[in-house]
């Protein structure tokens, strides 16, 4: 508001100054903005699934430190039909894994693509067609993942309901291979040229690839959690050599997802006292982490069967280094999605509230700073690029 007013006053002063026809320089037409090659690390990628109009999703680039919607909003990548977003640091590219229908909302021939975006121009630099069978559904961080240290391969989880993972070679820009996963789902990277999947009986499957992206071997573990009694949310936090899975009852399971073998550590509890035990994690994206090994979990009181997507009034912070719960953050608004971005002084906790606006909290104080309203109708995933 203030700014607009200033601009107006400024404009008036210019207008009253003495520009003549002779030296008037017209503004150039046709200039398109670009973004920095490396985004500031506090910027977020807000993935609007557009739940009411699923063919019209978008991934929006937003600076949560700014005050006005205009200053916050940097640009957008259109993403069709409950798409999945990935970013490669190694290749500095954005990937939107999406589906198109030849007859739009009515259907027709379905084409699934990995659409590659240049982060600077936000324009499409390439497209790779993949089998039209990727899982579509509510967003889980591991529906697709970059595989290997060099991030050469991208794995995409298929569900028809037969389950498999499509492997794309990002260097050669081709779909190479479909890896059968014997009824296990998701692509959890483990650093090596290998990925793990979660199986319906509470075990894990690790699939190892060769240099061309073909499956060389796979190993299946024993059951590590109870998928019916106390299942874990689909998307873990990666820290050290572990993937930390969050259970519906509010415990973290460290799973050492190695290339050769998988082992699970002891369960870690988010609750510290007896009366905290009725609190449960929940939400559309209920868990996130920062670069310092802090896990942020959206929590609600009086939880029980069926409340695991309800979101929460608080975010509980668990320090994976110290192995203890270090904070309980009371949110300004009931929220359904959490994310983080940034490091050092510009570091934020983000929470999509029930009005589908994104509340920004400054870290480490967790003081509420502002609310972002330009992130679309249903921003279900909101994280920085680190």
């Amino acid at each position: 508001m203030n700014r607009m007013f200033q601009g107006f006053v400024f404009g008036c002063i210019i207008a009253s100054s003495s520009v003549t026809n002779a030296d008037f320089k017209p503004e150039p037409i046709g200039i398109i903005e670009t973004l920095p090659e490396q985004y500031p690390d506090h910027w977020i990628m807000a993935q609007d699934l557009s739940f009411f109009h699923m063919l019209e999703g978008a991934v929006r680039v937003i600076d949560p430190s700014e005050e006005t919607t205009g200053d916050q909003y940097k640009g957008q990548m259109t993403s069709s039909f409950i798409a999945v977003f990935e970013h490669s640091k190694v290749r500095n590219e954005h990937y939107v894994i999406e589906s198109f229908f030849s007859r739009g909302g009515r259907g027709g021939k379905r084409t699934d693509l990995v659409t590659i975006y240049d982060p600077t121009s936000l324009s499409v630099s390439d497209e790779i067609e993949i089998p039209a069978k990727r899982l579509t559904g509510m967003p889980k961080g591991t529906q697709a993942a970059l595989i290997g240290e060099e991030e050469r391969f991208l794995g995409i989880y298929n569900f028809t309901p037969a389950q498999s993972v499509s492997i794309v070679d990002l260097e050669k820009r081709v779909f190479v291979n479909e890896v059968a996963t014997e009824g296990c789902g998701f692509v959890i990277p483990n650093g090596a040229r290998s990925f793990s999947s979660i199986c319906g009986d509470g075990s894990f499957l690790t699939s190892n690839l060769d240099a061309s992206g073909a499956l060389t071997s796979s190993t299946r573990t024993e059951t590590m959690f109870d998928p019916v009694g106390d299942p874990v949310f689909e998307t873990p936090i990666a820290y050290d050599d572990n993937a930390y899975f969050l259970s519906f009852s509010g415990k973290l399971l460290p799973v050492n997802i190695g290339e050769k073998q998988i082992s699970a550590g002891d369960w870690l509890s988010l609750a510290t006292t007896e009366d905290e035990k009725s609190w449960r994690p929940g939400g559309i994206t209920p868990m996130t982490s920062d670069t310092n090994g802090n896990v942020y979990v959206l929590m609600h009181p009086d939880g029980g069967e069926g409340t695991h997507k309800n979101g929460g009034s608080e975010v509980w912070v668990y320090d994976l280094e110290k192995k203890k719960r270090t904070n309980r953050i009371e949110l300004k608004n009931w929220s359904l999605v959490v994310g983080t971005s940034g490091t050092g002084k510009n570091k934020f906790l983000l929470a999509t509230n029930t009005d589908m606006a994104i509340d920004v909290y400054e870290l480490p104080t967790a003081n509420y700073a502002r609310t972002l309203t330009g992130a679309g109708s249903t921003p279900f995933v909101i994280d920085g690029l680190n």
Partner: protein
Amino acid sequence: MPGVDNPQRAHVNYILNCQGCHGPEGSGSADGDVPRMKDFLGNFLNVEGGREFLIRVPGVASAPLSDTAIAELLNWTLHTQSPDQIPEDFLPYNESDVIQWRRKTLGDVAHERERLIVRMR
């Protein structure tokens, strides 16, 4: 029904754990990659590896049911959906069959299935 202590319980277990993908009659869905079990499933019992295949497929092996319940459910499914294909010397599944095979996963399920189908010809 041989090997089925309680047909009603087996039917409910089928509805709760299998019907969503396989349909009420086991018709499957051609478009959706779910094989038809109706008037076909029993053929697996005629080929080597087929008996254990039915335990090892992911939908069965991973179902949240006890080993005994799985045995009963498989017997029920065979008798209800594919009675004419069951060989005469078929010994109903029992708990120890399931214990023996359930955790031996299949790897490439579609590939294994094709091998068995070839054997049927």
